[in-house]
């Protein structure tokens, strides 16, 4: 009987011509995923998912980035909706490069994220009211900047973010019990040690 396993049935067919035309890439856009590991902790940037829209991005982000460890909430935003400041080095603070920006139009809410260490993740600092992303950074320099040096600042319109609804807070209820998804919990070293000791006798 023909195998039922798609891993076998889906192997590329090699009979017939030697070559087939290379098809152009047909890919979805990218969305940025932010994770809150524990209640009271800030959301931090965790990575990127491909998706056809914001809602699908949310659904796919949940398993792509919160299969392990702990999580209480996530949010996602389309990459093109993230406005980023300059990236600085040494003791140069990214806010040194933020210039005063005048309001133009309706005020709206923007979420602000700080990068405190190069190579680490951006952390959510809070929200400011502004009329555009440039002004949002200027307002953030007055309201959210602390003593701690910042290497890069992101801002996202609050309305561009797909947040976790109150009803969906229990999505991560059983996550802390899923230790089996963490390679370390398999304790391969211990198993090997036991096996080697048993083989000596």
């Amino acid at each position, binding site marked *: *009987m023909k195998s*039922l*396993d*798609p*891993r076998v049935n*889906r192997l590329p067919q090699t009979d017939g011509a030697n070559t087939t035309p290379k098809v152009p890439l047909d890919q*979805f856009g990218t969305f940025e995923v932010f994770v809150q590991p524990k209640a009271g902790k800030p959301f931090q940037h965790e990575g990127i*998912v*491909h*998706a*056809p*829209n914001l*809602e*699908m991005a949310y*659904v*796919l*982000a*949940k*398993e*792509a980035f919160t*299969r392990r460890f702990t999580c209480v909430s996530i949010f996602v935003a389309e990459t093109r909706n993230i406005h980023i400041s300059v990236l600085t080095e040494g003791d140069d603070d990214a806010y040194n490069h933020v210039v005063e920006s005048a309001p133009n139009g309706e005020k709206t809410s923007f979420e602000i994220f700080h990068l405190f260490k190069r190579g680490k993740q951006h952390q959510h600092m809070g929200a400011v009211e502004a009329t555009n992303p440039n002004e949002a950074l200027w307002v953030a320099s007055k309201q959210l900047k602390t003593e701690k040096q910042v290497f890069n600042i992101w801002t996202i319109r609050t309305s561009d973010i797909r947040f976790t609804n109150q009803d*969906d807070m*229990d*999505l*991560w*209820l*059983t996550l802390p019990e899923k230790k089996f*998804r963490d390679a370390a919990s398999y304790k391969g070293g211990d*198993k090997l040690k036991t096996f080697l000791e048993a083989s000596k006798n």
Partner: protein
Amino acid sequence: MNQEAIKELLYKMADDQLILGHRNSEWTGFGPLLEEDIAFSSMAQDKVGHSLALYTMLNDLGEQDPDTIAFTRNADQFHNSIFTELPNAEYDFSLIRHFLYDTAEALRFEMLSHSSFEPLAQVATKVRGELRYHTMHANTWVKQLGAATEESISRLQQSLEYALPFALGIFELSPFEKELIADRIFEGEKALEEKWKKKVEDLIAQTQLQLPKWESISPQYGGRTGKHTEHLQPLLDEMSEVFKIDPTAEW
């Protein structure tokens, strides 16, 4: 409380979760996109986890240990609905099955969270977040593809029409319906089926898919009494391959 009735309920639920969990895990590494591959695999793992919780409950009621129950029975000793054992074929079918089955699964566990059989009520309450994600995932995909392109709509439509008779087989009546309802263990397959039809209708109405009239569909029963298709035994053989080499091995 009627132990035989509880056991019958637990076996069919656990077998459904195990068989579909295994079937869906066959997509691991072959999902239509990386993120979906991960999500679908995680949900398959959740289902196997639910089966373990239910087999453990059966073990507490005097049945054999979970591994023995899962890995040593033959196809005719399984109580899963035929729907769960059908081969995956194309992703559109797996997705429609995921939607139809998980809608029923989430409703069943929600009903059981009020069960008078306390261990079952506890497990049902505990996994509510997982099931919420499963239905959110299924609904989002079906809404997306059910209104996207001509191809996606016609593929889902065909799969839907193929799947519905088997989906109705989930609600095959148990010989213990009266006892389960009287003892307030479970409100019964009939009540579940009605709730499920309503949910399915609501979701399909948000797409360009057409739901056939319920009266026109002949449910495919038999799975609950061990009458399966030729697809179940090869699945069981593959699933238990490693276990049968050395049942005492720890891995």
